[in-house]
Structures are given as C-alpha cells and as structure tokens.
C-alpha cells in the first residue's frame, strides 16, 4: 500500500528499492499478489520490474547488476546485487508504528503479549530511529472500570449477549439494555462498544466510561445481517438531515464548547464565537446552556432559548423556595 495523494517520483524510487527485497525474501511471488501489496496495477508493476532490470553501471566495467524475470506471472530475482535488503526505517516511519503499538498496548491488556513482543522487535530493527518515538504519545481516556474492557473483549470473542446499565448524560438517565456486541472502537481518545442494541433495534455506540454496570449473559449474541458497522474513518458522529440546527453565541470563557463538540460552523466576531451544532436531541443543549450561564446564549431555535430561560428560572425557584442552606 502506498499513501494517499499523488504518486510522486520519490515514492516510486522507494517502491523500486522495496520491490527487489520483497521478491527475494519470498523466493518467488506472483505479479498479481505483488501489485496488490504495493498498491499498483500489474502494468505499473511490470514497468517497475523492467526499470530495475535495465539498471546499468558503466564503469569501471559495464554491467547490469540486477537480473530478474516474471515469466508466467511469477517474479524471480536471480541477481539482487546491493539492493537485496530493504532500506532501514526512518525516524518518522518507526515512530508512526511504535506510537500506535504503544497506544494499543495501553488500551487493550488482553492483546498485550503480541503487542509487547512486536514493540520489542520493531525497536530492535529500527535502532536509533526508534528513540524519538518516545516524544509522541497517544493517551486514551480510561475512565471505565478496570475489567469492563476485558469482559467486553471476552463477550465479543465468544459472541455472547451483554446486559448494560448505561448512563446517558444528555438526559441524565441510567438506562438498562441488552446489546449484541460487534467490536470495540478506540476513536478520538475514547473507547466505545459497538453493538446491536435490542432496545433501540439499531447499531449503537456505548462509551465505556459511561457503563454503570455490565453482565455477560449466557445467551448467544444475534447481530442481525442488516447491522451496518460504523465507518470509523468518516468520524463517529455524523449529523443526519432530520437533526435540529442549534446556534450558540459564546463569550471567551465559553469558547471551549467549540473545541469540545463537533460544530458545523464556527464564526468569530471580535471576542464572541457563533457556533452551529446539529443534534437529534436538544436536551443536552439545555444542560449545556445552564452550565454556560452568562458565557453562552442560545440564538436558535427560539423555543429552545425560551426553554433554557424556563429551566434557569425553575432552578432558581428551588433556591428561593426555602430549601435551606445547611444551618447546623
């Protein structure tokens, strides 16, 4: 696989240098398989092989250092000369893999044996290039009970139904539900269970730090065939056309809202931010508005703004109606 974006010449040179050792380490390998591994078409691959075969050094005596063939669709390198081994890993390459592996080891205790072995081998192979990788770290929030993750991994592997007691902060509710687990996601620094929620009859994500309690049931999980896994590469929370559009105006002390919630738009006017959020359920926005106090204002929809005023008045009413401050 090559990275996204334009195929540059330096990428091609890297590919050419990797191609010979790729074949050498496998003795012989098919054109189709190799093309797939390098993310190119067979035609591009054949062009690469021809370029390698044509390498010529003219002095002191002229010779062609690399000899290979791909007759019958099978590549064989009979003379690899000096490029029989791949180029060592760069600091950035070693770091990209090591940072990700260390993050995984931090998150998933169950897979840690293979992870720690791989980390050790990669560190050894990368040598000095691995040193700088310690300067980059990914720390996932682990605000969940220690064994919740292990229990879920176990339920996924054994395909067992899970009973969840789950906190929904937007509604300030504890909910009870049975979930047929699909997989665990670690995205945006948090860990989620993805599963078929039998109460909602749909695929739902459950943040592990909001699990109040769980039980692996002695019932086989039954994820229906129509259950579509979330496309983690597109972001977990995509607004739907039915969502309500909420506009908030934020003073500087409330600007954190723009960083904390996915906003559709953020406009700066002097010191104030005007943000637009889309949400299927505005109850959490009412709570947010109370929390912001004078640092935020609901601009739209108007009925939501009115509700927030009522919520604040009702709360203040409690304080005025003689619920005492502690006097003892």
């Amino acid at each position, binding site marked *: 696989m090559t990275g996204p974006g334009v195929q540059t010449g330096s990428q091609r040179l890297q590919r050419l240098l990797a191609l010979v050792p790729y074949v050498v380490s496998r003795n012989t390998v098919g054109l189709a398989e190799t093309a797939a591994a390098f993310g190119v078409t067979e035609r591009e691959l054949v062009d690469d092989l021809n370029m390698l075969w044509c390498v010529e050094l003219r002095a002191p005596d002229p010779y062609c250092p690399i000899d290979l063939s791909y007759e019958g669709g099978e590549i064989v390198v009979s003379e690899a000369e000096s490029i029989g081994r791949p180029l060592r890993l760069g600091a950035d390459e070693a770091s990209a893999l090591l940072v*990700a592996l260390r993050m995984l080891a931090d998150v998933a205790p169950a897979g840690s044996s293979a992870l720690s072995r791989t980390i050790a081998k990669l560190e050894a192979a990368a040598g000095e290039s691995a040193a700088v990788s310690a300067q980059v770290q990914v720390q996932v929030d682990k605000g969940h009970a220690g064994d919740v993750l292990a229990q879920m991994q176990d339920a996924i592997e054994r395909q067992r139904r899970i009973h969840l007691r789950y906190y929904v902060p937007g509604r300030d509710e504890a909910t009870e539900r049975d979930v047929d687990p699909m997989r665990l996601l670690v995205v945006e620094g948090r860990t989620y269970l993805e599963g078929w929620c039998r109460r909602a009859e749909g695929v739902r994500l459950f943040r592990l730090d909001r699990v109040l309690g769980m039980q692996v049931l002695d019932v086989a999980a039954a994820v229906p065939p129509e259950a579509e896994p979330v496309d983690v590469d597109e972001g977990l929370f995509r607004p739907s056309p039915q969502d309500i559009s909420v506009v908030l105006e934020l003073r500087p002390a409330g600007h954190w809202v723009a960083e904390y919630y996915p906003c559709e738009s953020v406009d700066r006017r002097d010191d104030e931010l005007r943000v637009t959020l889309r949400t299927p359920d505005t109850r959490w926005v009412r709570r947010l508005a109370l929390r912001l*106090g004078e640092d935020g204002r609901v601009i739209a929809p108007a009925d939501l703004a009115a509700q927030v005023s009522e919520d604040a008045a009702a709360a203040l009413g409690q304080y005025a109606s003689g619920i005492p401050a502690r006097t003892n």
Partner: protein
Amino acid sequence: MSRRKTERLLGLVVCLLSTRRALTAAQIREAVPGYPDSFEAFKRMFERDKEELRELGIPLETDLASPGDEEAGYRIRRQAYELPEITLEPDEAAVLGLAARVWQRAELAGTAAGALLKLRAAGIDAEDTTQPVIEPRVHTGEAAFGPLWEAVMDRRPVTFAYRAAGRSGVQQRRLEPWGVVNRHGRWYVAGHDVDRDAVRVFRLSRIEGAVAFSGPPGSVVVPAGTDVRELVRDWDSTPPAHRTATLRVRTGAGYGLRRRALSERPDGEGWDEIRVSFGDIGYSDYLASFGADVIAVDPPDLREAVIRRLKGVPQ
C-alpha cells in the same frame, strides 16, 4: 520526478551501495548513466540528487576517496542502509497491521504505509484478514499537527500564533518542541517556550495559521528524563478534589453525580441527599447544568456560585 530522473537515482543508489571504496564525483559520473556532459551541469544535478537521497533517509556518506586524496568521495554503507533482520509471528504481524491502520485517516497514513512497505519487503506478511476485536483510530485534524510532528522528529524549533483559552487576541510564540501528545482525543505540544524561558503546553486546535521552523534540524535538545505525557497531563488535569459538597438531588435524577457519590441517603419525599467531592469553585458550572433537579446545599460559596451561574443565563 521524471522517469529519467528516477532511473538515474536508482542507478546512483545501486552504484554507491555496490562500491567498497568511496567514489569521486567524476567516477560516479562515468558509472551512472543519465548525467549531462558538461561538468558544471553535472555538479549541480549531482548536488540535488544527493539531497534527494538524504531526504528519503538513504545514508549517503561523504569522505575522502583514499588516503592522501584531496577530493571528496561518496558511498552508502550497506550496514547503515539495510533494515536489520526482523521476523514476526503471525499474531505479531496482525497487530502490526492493526497499528498501521491507526493512522488510516490521519496525516501519518502515508508514513505508516511506507514503514509497512519496508517491513513487507523484509519478508513480513502484515496482511489483516481477520476482523479485529478492537478497531483503533487516531485523527489529526489540526493543521498544526504535520509541521509539529516533523519538528519533533527533526528536533527543530518553531514559531506560531496562539490563541490562549478564554483570552482575546493571538500571541506569537517561540517554542523548542519536546513532544506531541494526544490526550483523550486532543493534540498538545509541550516544550520550552523561548520568550518565557519556561516549560509550556499548547493545544494544537488553538494554533492559528502556519507553524514555521525557526532553526536547523537537531538544534533542540530534549532534557533527559522528560516525560511529555506527564507534562500534558499536569497541564490538562482538573484540580484535585479535596472539598466535599452536600447536594439535594431529585429521586431518579443526577446519575452523573450519584456515580461518584461519597454517600447517598433519602432526604424527604422525592429527594435524596448526596455528598460528593470537588476541586474548585468551577464545579458550580457542572451543578448548574442539572437545573431544578439538583440543589447545592453546602458549602455556602459553592451554593452562591451555582445561583450566580443560573442568574447569568440570558433571559
């Protein structure tokens, strides 16, 4: 890069890897096809080629061709070039494939793919055929991530415009970056703030405009024993909870509070009394979010702060 240039660079790498002794520029020109006839034009092209190979991480060495020789010679030592032997068990290869996928939609996708390519070239089959139990992703949506990652890798100082939380206006900052850390989904950079001569942590989402390098590679020294993760954690953490609050919470409400309650008991019809610990008066904002379901009873300063917060809600 043109096809001819790719061919020339490939020939140059093979030539410099094959040679036992360092070759002079003139010898290289004779051996590698594709260089122009004019020696001046050759020298310019060769300089660019050397730069290009170094950018790819190819350890091109310059030394004297032979003792007593005045002219510089060039070669690539196989030992410095080659990836050492590495073999992985199937379960190790599987986690390696998973690790590369972590950056799938991030700035480092190409870098991770390049690393995987070299490991495949070393004979490792890091194919991910099974559906993994855990699917991890790290995003790098902040524009500042790319240059800061590069600055940390190359140990270079940077400058950028920064908008501090809750403040208006931006300030130009000069930083020797020690590391970048993703904490709970957000990226931070920690390092030595040159103007303040102190350790500082910055959130990447608050950097405005471009990050510029302000010094050569290798000029930043990270003090021994620096733990960037700890620096960011200390900066980001809420103050330790050393005070206790007494709250009245409506029955069936306030689950977020009940989860962390020190004690909980019924307190009249429809209400419970809950005690929780808190760090500073900013906790009142959180309590205000529960509206009429939660009443702060004690301490008085917390109660007053909640009332103030609620009174501040625009009418």
